[in-house]
Every structure is written in C-alpha cells, then in structure tokens.
C-alpha cells in the first residue's frame, strides 16, 4: 500500500488551465478545514468563505471534523499513532464530503500532511490501524469499515495562500479597494516556509517564497523587506508556556524588525502566528520585559481580502482580539 502525498499539484493546474486556474475548481466540492483559532479571528474563516461563494464555488464545512490535534502531538500529550488516527478519522470524514480541503492555518495544514507522512512508518501504521479498528467495529458504510486508512483518496489539500495566489486575477477583480501603497511586512510562518514536501525538487527547495509579496503588490501595496522576515513568530508549540520570556523575545524581535523599516502592518497566512503576534497580553508582557511598546497591526490574508472586498467591518476584524491601530488600517484602505 502506498501512502499518497495529499497536496494538490498546483503546477499541473497551471499547465492545464493557464488562462483561468479558477475553472479547475468550478466542478469541485471545496471544504474549509475549521482551524480552532478562527474562533478568535472569525474574519479568517468568513473572508475566504464569502469570496468563494461570490465566485460561485461549491464550499462547505465538515461538521464531523475535529481539531487537527497537532498541538497535542507537539506537546508530547499523544503518540504518533494516536495523532495519525485522529488525522485519518478527519481525512475519512472530509473525503466523504469534498474533493479539495482548504486550510487557513499553517499548523493544521502541516498536521494533516505530517499525519499521512507518519503512516509510511510500518510500526506507526500498524498501531494506527489497531486504534481505528477499535472504533465502531460494526459500522460499515459503502463497504468501508469506518474508519480505516484509505489508500486511494480522491481528496486533496490546499493552503489558502496557494489557492488565493493561483486564482489571484479573479481575487483582484473582486476587490473594491486597493492597499493605497501601504507598506506591508510579510510573515509566511514556519509551517508554510519549512514544509518538507518542498524538498522534492532542488528548485522548490532553493527558491524564495514570494507568493504573499506578489499578492501585496497586485493589491496595490508595497512589500517591505525586514531582517526577521523568515523568523518564527515565537509560538513554538509550548514555548510561550515553558519559556515565555525567550519565546516573547523572538516575537518582540519580529515585531520590532518590521516596525523599524516603517511597515504599516504585518500580513500572514496563519491564525496561530496571528494569535502570537497580536495578543494584547503578549504585547503588554513584551513592553514590561523588553521596555518598548510595539503597536504594529497584524492581519491574516483572508481578513485583508475581506477588507479589500469591502466587507462590513464585523465580517472582517471587529469580532477578533484587536491589535492597536487595526482600525486605522481599515479606515485607510476603505476610504473612498
């Protein structure tokens, strides 16, 4: 049995649909993977949901999908087999409902990929099968025992950033406002930047990641370079609990570095990074420990697209834990 890599082949889509990659998705069922932290930043979910609906795509959420559990695996609270079993249960449910799963969170995206990767280890695979077999032994759907490790999965995974970049021209055409030449510091996040699947070819491994930068330019903003561009946000699974001062030093360096080059805000494709870089309690602690109050706003790509599309404020940013000056950015962008 071959455990397949479930990432969608973007190069192939661009080759088959060079004019309009969006056409590839027209007859597909899309499902948004529900990231836990979207609870704090609902605009991250609604931003992409509203856009997809406006583009006439078939989009849904899977009620049976649980948390990806990556955070528990990274904190040594569950084993590899337990993590893979939770993963396979989610994949089974998603596969029933959709052709393509979209991810707004680097952590969830990485978890789903990693869970599958672990199954290449025969010992982990055997233990995962044992766990899955212990669930609902008698429940059989479509001749499949629920749950089992599915070999020929039709489902494919796609990060929101990769998707939005692929259909960038259609996204651009849906915008009501532009970025008014605001200076934007880009943060990709470690679990997007460092995905091992990118080591498949030397070119993919060596080339810089520039999709966010290109989107910012397309939307009328100016991406600015800063020293900590590729640095971690400081979350580090358990680091903010185990070693908070060191973790927040990394967060501080990132924010300070972006502020120092005059960036108006930091843009990222991950709600976990957003949580770390924007949480008011962390900003206060940084002020207390490192003696400087940093007030640079932070925005998720999906939220930014919602703002640029002219969505109501409560659909983009109002409900989330705000960083200072976020209103200011909202006002500048939406000024007629």
């Amino acid at each position, binding site marked *: 049995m071959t455990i397949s890599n479930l990432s969608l082949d973007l190069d192939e889509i661009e080759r088959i649909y060079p004019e309009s990659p969006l056409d590839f998705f027209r007859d597909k069922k899309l499902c948004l993977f529900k990231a836990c932290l979207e609870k704090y930043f609902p605009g991250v979910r609604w931003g992409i949901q509203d856009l997809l609906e406006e583009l006439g795509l078939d989009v849904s959420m899977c009620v049976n*999908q649980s948390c990806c559990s990556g955070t528990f*695996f990274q904190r*040594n609270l569950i084993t590899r087999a337990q993590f893979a079993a939770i993963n396979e249960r989610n994949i089974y449910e998603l596969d029933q409902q959709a052709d393509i799963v979209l991810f707004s969170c680097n952590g969830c995206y990485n978890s789903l990929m990693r869970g599958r990767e672990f199954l290449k280890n025969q010992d982990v695979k055997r233990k995962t099968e044992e766990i899955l077999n212990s*669930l609902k032994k008698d429940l059989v759907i479509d001749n499949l025992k629920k749950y089992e490790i599915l070999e020929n999965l039709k489902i494919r995974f796609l990060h929101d950033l990769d998707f939005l970049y692929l259909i960038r021209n259609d996204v651009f055409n849906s915008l009501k406002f532009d970025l008014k030449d605001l200076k934007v510091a880009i943060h990709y996040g470690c679990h997007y930047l*460092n995905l091992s699947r990118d*080591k498949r070819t030397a070119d993919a491994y060596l080339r810089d990641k520039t999709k966010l930068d290109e989107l910012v330019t397309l939307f009328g903003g100016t991406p600015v370079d800063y020293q900590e561009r590729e640095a971690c946000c400081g979350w*580090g699974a358990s680091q903010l609990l185990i070693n908070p001062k060191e973790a927040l030093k990394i967060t501080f360096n990132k924010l300070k570095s972006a502020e120092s080059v005059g960036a108006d805000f930091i843009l990222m494709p991950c709600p976990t990074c957003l949580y770390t870089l924007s949480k008011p309690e962390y900003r206060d602690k940084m002020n207390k420990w490192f003696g400087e109050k940093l007030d640079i706003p932070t925005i998720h790509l999906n939220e930014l697209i919602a703002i640029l599309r002219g969505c109501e404020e409560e659909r983009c940013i109002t409900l989330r834990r705000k960083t200072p000056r976020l209103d200011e950015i909202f006002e500048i962008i939406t000024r007629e």
Partner: protein
Amino acid sequence: MEEYSDSEWNWDFYKELVDDVEENKNIIQCISCGKCVGDCPATKVSNFNIRKIIQKVLRGDKSVLKDSDIWYCYLCERCKRVCPKDNINIPLLIINLRNESFKKGYGPRYNDLRKYVEMSERFLIKGVVVEEQLGEPLPQERIDELNEICNFARIKYVFKASKTNKNKKKKLKKS
C-alpha cells in the same frame, strides 16, 4: 563543543531511540555542518544547540534527557529545511527525546501547566482547543471517538489528574 574520548563511544542510547522511532536512524548521517544551529530561532535566545544534542545522543550521553535544552526547541522545522541531508528529522528527534524525558520523570519546568490541562479538557469534551468552536459544535459521537483514540495517552492522564484535583478541592471546601 564538549570533547569525548574514544572510550566514550556508546551506541546503546542511539539504538534505544531508533527502536522507538525508526526515523531517528538517519541522525547518524549528521556531518556537524552547523547549518541547523545557525538558522535556529531557539539558538538565538537560549543555549539550545542541536549539533550538541545530536553529538550527545551519538555518544550515548543520556544526560541530554535531563538538560533543559531540549525544551527550548520551537519545532519550526527550519533545521529540516536547511539540513543538507535529506532524511534527518530533527523536530521528530526532539519530540522523541522529550517523550523519554517525560517517561523518566524529568520533563520541563512548566510555568503554567494549567493551560495544558485546559486544552486537554476542551479537546476531550468538545474536540477543539478553544472555549467553543466557530460554527456548529462537533457531534457527541465524534467526541466519544476522540476519547477512545486517546485512551492511554498522556492527554487523558492530564485530564484525569485535573478532575481528581478538582474533586479533592471540592471535598476540602465542603469539609
């Protein structure tokens, strides 16, 4: 870097780790180039040094399990990206070492273990790590499955311990 004499070569610890997580066998390919150290966020703010940790493992020096160093890794996978070898999975090695450290009762010095307990509770009661999820909640049947999967997991012990503590506190209050 710490100096070791030839007599200190010992493969027992390495073999133990490989028995537990097969992928760890690849760390023997490490050429000590130091790329992982130079690009590591943890190294910038602490004494975390992955080259030193790998060296200790390959010399059979189990003191690495007691060191606080292994608890500074951010699992950001940067090292995996910059490593010139294809299959050295440092984040997985760190998770494995932390697991062994837990088993031996060392573990990290948590500043706020309460957060771990809260997260574990939420996951086993609601299937998410936040108070409530955005949108429809996970059906109870699915939550039961998660609990079954997590049988014998550390997350369950953390959860049970928190319940026992709560009951003890309640009893104390009553008395």
